[in-house]
């Protein structure tokens, strides 16, 4: 009996702290949770300073979002009459409800930031080329998925921000050539923002988009493994390739003449030496858990001290003044506010130019970049001198977006006029 329990426990737990290399490798095969890790991982891939573990941190936030999100579903009612009230209940009537909502909110904003920072890391280390181009594309899809989850998520409280963001957002969609009005009609489930809209965005937010993002996350991580680990190993790989050595022939291979050359047991598929690698369990798993716990505690800390914003209940007749998008979309709001152009008698609305064309071009650039990139070396190194021009392009675009965010978030006042952050803003009657 006791032996049985011990065996069972070992089956579940012993691989987490293996006593030998052999146990560590066996753990990967035997344990369900570990089997999607490689048996061995290069020390460079595990380095804190190379990857900064931004992808793992973003994935950790997505775990937190999934768990807190499912818990919020127990209290939230996706109806225009009750949605706002159920958020108020979460804040004032449900024990720790506010904490739960805060954590969901800060994890969501953190995920947007970390997904972008992870992308920047991959770009600056030139880790998106060759076989890794596919995973870069998956990453771009994940960034989009994260943004769509954010957008559908902040509609749900049915407050003023929600209502006007969705009004403006779907009006931007309707500016798209040909399909625009139809897209808006399907998104809203009619011509106005209403119950159908809320329900559609709710289902997208709690099931459809998370399911797609989870599948892509799993594929994203699997591809890291299939591409031989992080690009950080490429300089080492090149080094190992440059030093050819006579591989020992094993008896069976040479005696039976099964295959010429070295045996499969000698050359690792990663092209690295045995000494370059360590067992995934516990070296990789321990760090992943450490990252998860750090990220979890940071969101918890934020949630204890800063409350998630909630504006007044949705009022279809009065727009808040100014009505501002969350920081990760406010650069688009800033763009659409001055990109309307008049060419003779033709007017192109800012909704089309700043809301669809500019983001569309940025997205196309992200998708095409790995294929336009001609450089062959400098993979897996931060800010390689050979990539100076490419990195400059990325930095400039990022800086422009950050400047637009700063202008939109801090310098825009009532009626979207420009004010210095310290200059007084006119006090206006709230409702006409």
């Amino acid at each position, binding site marked *: 009996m006791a032996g049985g329990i011990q065996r069972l426990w070992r089956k579940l737990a012993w691989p987490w702290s293996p006593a030998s290399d052999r146990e560590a490798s066996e753990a990967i095969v035997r344990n369900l949770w570990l089997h999607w890790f490689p048996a061995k991982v290069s020390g460079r891939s595990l380095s804190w300073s190379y990857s900064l573990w931004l992808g793992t941190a973003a994935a950790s936030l997505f775990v937190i979002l999934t768990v807190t999100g499912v818990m919020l579903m127990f209290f939230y009612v996706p109806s225009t009459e009750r949605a706002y009230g159920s958020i108020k209940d979460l804040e004032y009537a449900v024990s720790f409800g506010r904490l739960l909502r805060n954590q969901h909110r800060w994890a969501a904003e953190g995920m947007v930031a970390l997904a972008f920072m992870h992308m920047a890391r991959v770009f600056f280390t030139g880790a998106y080329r060759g076989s890794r181009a596919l995973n870069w594309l998956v990453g771009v899809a994940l960034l989009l998925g994260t943004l769509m989850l954010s957008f559908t998520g902040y509609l749900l409280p049915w407050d003023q921000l929600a209502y006007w963001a969705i009004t403006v957002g779907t009006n931007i969609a309707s500016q798209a050539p040909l399909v625009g009005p139809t897209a808006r009609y399907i998104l809203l*489930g009619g011509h106005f923002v209403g119950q159908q809209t809320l329900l559609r965005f709710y289902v997208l937010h709690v099931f459809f988009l998370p399911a797609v993002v989870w599948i892509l996350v799993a594929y994203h991580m699997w591809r890291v493994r299939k591409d031989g680990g992080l690009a950080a190993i490429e300089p080492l790989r090149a080094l190992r390739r440059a030093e050819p050595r006579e591989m020992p022939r094993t008896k069976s291979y040479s005696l039976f003449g099964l295959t010429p050359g070295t045996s499969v047991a000698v050359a690792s598929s990663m092209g690295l030496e045995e000494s370059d690698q360590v067992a995934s369990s516990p070296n990789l798993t321990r760090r992943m858990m450490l990252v998860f716990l750090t990220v979890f505690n940071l969101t918890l800390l934020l949630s204890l001290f800063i409350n998630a914003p909630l504006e007044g209940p949705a009022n279809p007749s009065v727009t808040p003044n100014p*009505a501002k998008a969350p920081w990760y979309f406010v650069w688009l709001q800033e763009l659409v506010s001055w990109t309307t152009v008049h060419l003779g008698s033709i007017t192109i609305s800012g909704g089309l130019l700043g809301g669809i064309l500019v983001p569309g071009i940025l997205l196309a650039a992200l998708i095409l970049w790995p294929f336009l990139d001609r450089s062959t070396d400098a993979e897996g190194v931060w800010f390689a001198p050979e990539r100076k021009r490419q990195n400059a392009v990325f930095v400039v675009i990022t800086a422009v977006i950050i400047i637009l965010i700063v202008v939109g978030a801090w310098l825009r006042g009532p009626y*979207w006029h420009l004010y210095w952050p310290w200059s007084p803003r006119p006090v206006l009657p709230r409702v006409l």
Partner: protein
Amino acid sequence: MDTDRRRLLRWLGKGSVFAAFVAQIGAAARAFFPNVLYEPPTTFKLKQPAFYPQGYTFDAEHRLFVIRAEARFHVISAVCTHLGCTVQWRGTEFDCPCHGSRFDANGNVISGPAPRPLPWFEISIAPDGLLEVDSASAVPEGSSLTVATEKT
């Protein structure tokens, strides 16, 4: 000959099953285009003409301005032509809080991203004496309704 017929039949069999599969996806997608909309009508009644003071009155329910000059009435939409926020009347002009569009007293664009002027809606007097607006039909700028004898 025989194998050709078999191949054709096999292709038809598999193809029809696949076609049914695709058609079902299409049917599911079609469900997302609502056939019945529970939306307010585009023609609706406002209040009696006597209710409105001289000048600009905002109707929050219908998101429009009723503008009265003596006995003449006209109606201008309060929905910004840029991206749909509600504009506010500021004594001399309409300003939008979302992206800073500005319109003059007749709804023409002064500055900002709005691509078109604010539309004027057709206005009439219903048999029961209430003002009636058809928000689906725009009228040219300057059109107005003169109410000769006011009921109070």
